[in-house]
């Protein structure tokens, strides 16, 4: 993940109510399991992770896609991650610094997002939802929502049944 602050990122930060009066430093520890599927034709899923808060613009934290294809061709299927595309993706340009990542193989993947670093804003107090959505070429789509609140923090889990396995989020100060 490259981390550079682009004009786009700055604009998004400024426009977001997420950043108002941060309630201390926060870190999100996220574990995403991508299930091993026994299908005739397997492609690694496109996965988007984003943060929602009522009244604020959704913030993309990570988007895994075929970012290394020639002429940016991998972006053609980003719209298939359709809830994320509607919520946040369609207004972004790709590759997005700090957000774009390669697709991941089946297995458990650990991600850490620290407030104020890369795509992760400082979080003001309130209720949030972290959303993980996966869409797989010639496969299906699945979306899991993990609610949490700041400054309470804590742990949220969800279990996928198709394109996603167990997803676990821990919010710590």
């Amino acid at each position: 993940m490259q981390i550079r602050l682009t004009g786009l990122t700055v604009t998004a930060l400024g426009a977001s109510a997420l950043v108002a009066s941060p309630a201390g430093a926060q870190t999100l520890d996220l574990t995403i399991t991508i299930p091993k599927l026994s299908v005739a034709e397997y492609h690694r899923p496109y996965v988007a992770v984003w943060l929602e808060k009522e009244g604020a613009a959704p913030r993309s934290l990570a988007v895994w896609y075929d970012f290394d294809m020639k002429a940016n061709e991998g972006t053609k299927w980003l719209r298939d991650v359709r809830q994320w595309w509607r919520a946040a993706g369609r207004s972004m340009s790709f590759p997005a610094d700090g957000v774009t990542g390669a697709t991941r193989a089946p297995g458990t993947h650990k991600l850490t997002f620290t407030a104020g670093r890369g795509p992760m804003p400082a979080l003001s107090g309130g209720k949030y939802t972290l959303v993980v959505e996966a869409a797989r070429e010639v496969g299906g789509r699945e979306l899991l929502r993990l609610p949490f609140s700041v400054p309470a923090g804590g742990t949220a889990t969800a279990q996928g049944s198709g394109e996603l396995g167990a997803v676990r989020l821990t919010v710590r100060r």
Partner: protein
Amino acid sequence: MKLRTPLLAAAAFLALATPAAVQAHRMWMLPSATIVSGDDVWVTIDAAVSNDLFYFEHQPLRGDPKVLAPDGSTLEVENKATGRYRTTFDVHLTQKGTYKVAIVSEGVMGSYMLGGERKPIPRGTTTATLASVIPAGATEVRTSESANRNEVFITSGEPTNTVFKPTGKGIELIPVTHPNDLVAGETATFQFTLDGKPMPEQAVTVIPGGIRYRDKLNQMDLKTDAAGKVQIKWPEPGMYWLNVTTGGGRGPGMGPGAEGQGASAAPAGPAPRRANYVTTLEVLAP
């Protein structure tokens, strides 16, 4: 559907100029995608006249499709071909934003008496050329003017509204909800205008595609409010055909009935007005 060949073929041939003549059939354009991502995007569009939606089983839709790009420029379609049952063409989207692909036609139909014989006004006549096609000495000139618009919208990246700037001619869709932001279970609002003026109490017909695989048409008969706005709650994801017709409509879902063509013996003018609007809308799963 009551028409039989060769009347059927003749009616379809006139489809663009005389929608009322083929009102049993539905004109439509079907884009391969309405919401796209990426930097160099192609969308292919099929255009046909048929009973079922969206199957090619009757006639290709003829006409001259034009593309209005988000920056206001007009693009030509590419790879256009017309086969037995459909016309197909491609649109190359190199800008971000919302595009409009439209087949628009205007015309004047009618007839006049000359030498004791009633003669039709030739096909392709417009308001501007009307005077030149009616010979001196013609009497009992009966005409009706039509404006037909068949359009679809495609968005690359974030939806924009530049292509919805009204032209003030015929029926036009003014988005309250963007037509490329439709989700099953949500309610969309569109406004319709005729020659730039809102169309209050106007019938709006919406039919979901895939008619062939169900017994019921599932047609939604809606009506605009006093401001010309209609609300549509999408029951399920899929492609939907939307039609607004005014003046001369007689078939089911074709709008309020009106006097047929030539009912009044106006000496020259193009009234009565007949206008038709068709679009195909894609509704996504939540």
